[in-house]
């Protein structure tokens, strides 16, 4: 026990002697939380729409006025035909074109049916979908009012209507920041823990000081513990720090029990750091550690479901995710923070993380050689 205490003392001293350490511990999380969470949003702020009105009727003007009244839409009028609009799509000046064909009003009265065209720049499929659904909702509402006005029916409803009421639990405003903040935080503690611990070990190799440690009676597991514990604590600290920022800046509701969250995080970090240490035991230089860790991190993060739900991924990817610690942790972070899931709810994830942690750590201890 005493040996471990001395090793830990040494490690902590070495870590905090480094002047860039403190900015790393505080600065990186702050920067990442602010930049990434703010940047990562699908919520549209405005739609630049070109209006081509060929009907020039009362109805078409009312419809345009309806769009114009929504601050969300930035309309560009006075475009005589589509070609100029298309030119604007090409140069990214417009996101969409609304074309009201000639005789729309007449068709509407005569045939009970009329069409308007919506031409959307769909390179970004996601935004295109949103533009389409927002715009058709505006047109739909306009249409409803029109019917009410002209036919005197307050709200036209077909016989046999199902009233669908929607409720969005845990995030009624559909605030995207609430979704991203726990996700980014999960990535953050992993990156900090895994990279720092891995590079720290291999640095001893590069400088040659590992030889000095190897000739001491320090046991393999004691050495690994010494390399593990400081970064484990730093990562846990950063998790707390990040949660605080998220709570202050994004009003992130922390519904769940923090003790549960930190219990899960501790187990997860054992695995993540164990993996970092394992990578460093098979590498010779810091550069190699960086590259290999970077490669795996990228795959872990992308497949862990930070941006898109794991359920939508192909089956092979979901199978791989069973050994992806990031997948479990991402799920845990969001479930505990936003929904208040308890220990029992996520027992399966907890056991999986525990198993992965034991495997990665054993690998690291096994692969660490005191002789070269």
């Amino acid at each position, binding site marked *: 026990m005493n040996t471990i205490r001395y090793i830990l003392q040494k490690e902590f001293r070495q870590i905090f002697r480094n002047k860039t350490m403190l900015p790393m511990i505080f600065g990186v999380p702050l920067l990442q939380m602010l930049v990434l969470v703010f940047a990562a949003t699908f919520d549209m702020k405005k739609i630049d729409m070109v209006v081509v009105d060929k009907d020039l009727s009362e109805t078409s003007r009312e419809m345009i006025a309806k769009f114009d009244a929504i601050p969300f839409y930035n309309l560009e009028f006075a475009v005589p035909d589509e070609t100029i609009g298309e030119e604007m799509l090409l140069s990214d000046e417009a996101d969409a074109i609304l074309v009201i064909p000639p005789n729309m009003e007449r068709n509407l009265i005569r045939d009970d049916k*009329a069409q308007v065209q919506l031409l959307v720049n769909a390179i970004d499929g996601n935004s295109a979908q949103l533009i389409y659904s927002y715009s058709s909702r505006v047109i739909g509402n306009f249409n409803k009012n029109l019917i009410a006005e*002209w036919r005197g029916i307050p709200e036209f409803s077909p016989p046999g209507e199902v009233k669908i009421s929607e409720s969005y639990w845990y995030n009624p405003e559909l605030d995207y920041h609430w979704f991203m903040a726990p996700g980014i935080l999960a990535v953050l503690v992993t990156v900090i823990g895994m990279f720092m611990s891995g590079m720290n070990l291999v640095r001893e190799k590069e400088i040659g000081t590992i030889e000095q440690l190897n000739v001491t009676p320090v046991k393999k597991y004691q050495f690994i513990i010494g390399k593990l514990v400081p970064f484990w604590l730093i990562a846990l600290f950063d998790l707390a720090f990040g949660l605080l920022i998220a709570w202050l800046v994004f009003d992130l509701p922390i519904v769940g029990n923090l003790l549960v969250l930190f219990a899960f995080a501790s187990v997860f970090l054992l695995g993540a750091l164990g993996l970092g240490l394992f990578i460093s035991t098979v590498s010779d230089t810091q550069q190699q550690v960086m590259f290999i860790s970077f490669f795996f991190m990228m795959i872990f993060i992308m497949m862990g479901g930070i941006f898109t739900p794991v359920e939508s991924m192909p089956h092979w990817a979901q199978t791989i995710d069973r050994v992806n610690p990031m997948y479990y942790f991402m799920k845990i972070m969001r479930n505990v923070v936003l929904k208040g899931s308890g220990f029992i709810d996520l027992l399966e994830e907890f056991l999986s993380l525990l198993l992965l942690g034991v495997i990665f750590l054993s690998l690291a201890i096994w692969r660490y050689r005191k002789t070269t």
Partner: protein
Amino acid sequence: MKQLKSFIKKEFFHIFRDPRTMLILFGIPIAQLLIFGTVIKSEIKDVHIAVYDQSKDVTTQQITNKILSSGYFILDKNLENTNGIEDIFRKGKVKEVIVFESNFGEKLKKEGKANVQLIADASDPNTARLVISYTSGIINDYIKKMHPNLQLPMQIQPEVRMYFNEEMKSAYMFVPGVMALILMLISAMMTSISITREKELGTMEILLVSPLRPAQIIIGKVIPYLLLSVANAFVIVLIGNLVFGVPITGSFILLMLETILFIMMALCLGILISTAAKSQMTAMFISMIGLMLPTIILSGFIYPIENMPVVLQVISHIMPARYFVTIIRAIMLKGVGILFVWKETLILIGMTLFFIAVSVRKFKIRLE
């Protein structure tokens, strides 16, 4: 000239000797493309739902079956009371609960109105929105089919045309983005590290006292990465085209010229970083934090720049990748020529010249 040739040869040997470098050079682009292409999907599939059917009549049964047979949803559980909803959401698997009111079918027939409640787990807002809109769509469709002869008065039909990407493939977004990312990674990061490495190991001194002139050293260092980057860009465009069906509507030559311009810019940036950084670690951190993250986040290849807060939008203007992504998209997808992208091209040229100028001023022939 002969000296330069053998120097370049040496550099190639250095690169090909290390399998880890090769992993970065060719493993990452391919892994990235595949992950983005097959794993990152924002459409919904196999979403687990629960049903709380208080009516249990033919109509609700039919609606439920219709929802489940759509291919988007899988029934996880039939709930018996409202208390179960919270529990089931906390486990995290079920994303939506459908609640039918009692006597649903009867009410629909007699009163012409019945209620159904869709409750989504909005801790993932995007999925929640999609799940609810898919479910409502299916329910509305069912009702419409029940009344096939219903003719609504005065309908304005919005008819949509998706420009440049009719099938709304996500590959159209990520292929240009991955290209910018990889070229940045290889050109800027690898050059800067390879130059600082010579400094750190002391071999730079040997190179400097050799008959090679400093400019030749730099050129020798840069040419292998230039060639590798072009090869990589080629591979990415090819995979994008063959595997994910991203077309090259515009001029291929213009595309390659712009790509080479971007690579040149990134190489100069790499040289600049190496003149500033003393160790590989520093070079790596500057490249990782200063280049990688902004390239991923602020170039607009996953998240549109217009949606970001103004501060970030302003910062994104100094990200070279932003202009490159715009250019690539314009050429590949919109099929436009230089007339539409001359502004972005000029900015990239300006950046390249700026980096060269600063590097030349900072480059030291002597080591301290």
